[in-house]
């Protein structure tokens, strides 16, 4: 009985696929989305990814190994396919960087080129990596950044970030303006870790689940 009831409840919750390309701690993103009410699956199953109303590309670590692991499992194609199909999509940290043309971290490895810019080493005299909370400077109102309060603080761990473009919706200051979030159409991406940014980060995850399930955050 309990199992059937759980299955029915799970059906009513929006299905979010967190793309599992096998390296790094990808569980945190899954736990975060589950916490805000999504039926979240960490998966490398293309069929399940195609069933999901929202797709998340998480990431920790380095650009080159992440990109190679994604390609080795053939997941690069389903990621681009879902993005081109207009499915709500969220790239996080290295998962954001992989959406760009490439990265100075390993220039011979191509990115997914959803955004045509390059990911570059942070031009700063401050310590690298940036391992700290930082305050967002919001450049453009966007649903990702709705209801974050007056001073949104998010947790960053990175040495590289995408170069500026018209898709940048928020930056942080780390010895200069650093790209913190980009968005274009159905594609959202964040350099920070919303799944590790306490209440503020959980709100962003909740904003994405709402976007993916055509609901308001209050309806989740």
């Amino acid at each position: 009985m309990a199992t059937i009831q759980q299955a029915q409840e799970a059906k009513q919750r929006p299905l979010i696929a967190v793309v599992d390309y096998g390296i790094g701690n990808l569980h945190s993103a899954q736990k975060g989305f589950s916490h805000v009410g999504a039926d979240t699956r960490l998966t490398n199953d293309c069929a399940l990814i195609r069933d999901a109303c929202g797709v998340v590309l998480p990431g920790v670590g380095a650009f080159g190994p992440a990109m190679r692991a994604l390609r080795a499992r053939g997941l690069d194609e389903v990621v681009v396919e879902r993005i081109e199909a207009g499915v709500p999509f969220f790239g996080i940290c290295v998962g954001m960087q992989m959406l760009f043309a490439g990265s100075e971290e390993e220039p011979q490895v191509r990115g997914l080129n959803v955004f045509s810019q390059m990911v570059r080493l942070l031009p700063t005299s401050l310590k690298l990596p940036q391992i700290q909370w930082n305050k967002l400077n919001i450049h453009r109102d966007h649903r990702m950044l709705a209801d974050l309060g007056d001073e949104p603080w998010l947790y960053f761990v990175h040495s590289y970030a995408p170069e500026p473009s018209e898709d940048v919706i928020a930056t942080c200051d780390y010895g200069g303006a650093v790209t913190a979030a980009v968005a274009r159409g159905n594609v959202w991406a964040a350099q920070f870790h919303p799944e590790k940014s306490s209440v503020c980060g959980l709100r962003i995850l909740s904003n994405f689940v709402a976007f993916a399930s055509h609901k308001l955050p209050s309806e989740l």
Partner: protein
Amino acid sequence: MRVVRVIPCLDVDAGRVVKGVNFVDIRDAGDPVELAALYDAQGADELVFLDITASSERRDTTEAMARAVAEQVFIPFTIGGGIRTLEDARALLRAGADKVSVNTAAVKRPVLVREISSEFGAQCCVVAIDARHRAVSKDEGSFEVYTHGGRTRTGLNAVQWACEVQRLGAGEILLTSMDADGTKDGFDIPLTSAITNAVDIPVIASGGVGTLQHLVEGVLLGGADAILAASIFHFGEHTIAEAKQALASQDIPTRP
């Protein structure tokens, strides 16, 4: 903008939080998940769990704790203590820890730092260094690395060891002064500044915090990127918010 992190440290024995004074004389201070959630709500920037469990079931209880914390608390947390191999690190990271901290095992086999860093990324590889002033020498950099919770001398120079672990791929250094730890007399500033001047990676200063002014000194005089404390937070002497106000009052940026 460099933003200083305030990190409560929770010593864990068999799934319960305790805090030793000079690593002996332990008092029980509660449940790890509840404390973690409390510190998150108070505005702690990260958490560090130091596992001091000696029993053979330690790995299972610590992994279970990591899973429980990761389900309910959404700020970064580090687990250290007793991590000897790449497999130990993998198990804790898979259970939900964001970083692992290695100490004795890294001294015994320095390449472990490189293994963890290249497998999981430098961002999750913290090297804990416990150091003491050398008894006979007053020379600059005359700090010796200790292992096994401060009981075993290594003969290693702490500044040289810090540079070595950076070269091996450590993402951060968690520096504890064994002279200052438990004294509540403040950070060991000569040790802290010797290490922060020698490396480019972030340094978390630990050991000796008794007042909020000590936190300020750790940043302004010691050059620490993050400050770690236990008893002043655990026993309600000060809240995280008070610690951050003290830092902010000296124009040190923090997350409010």
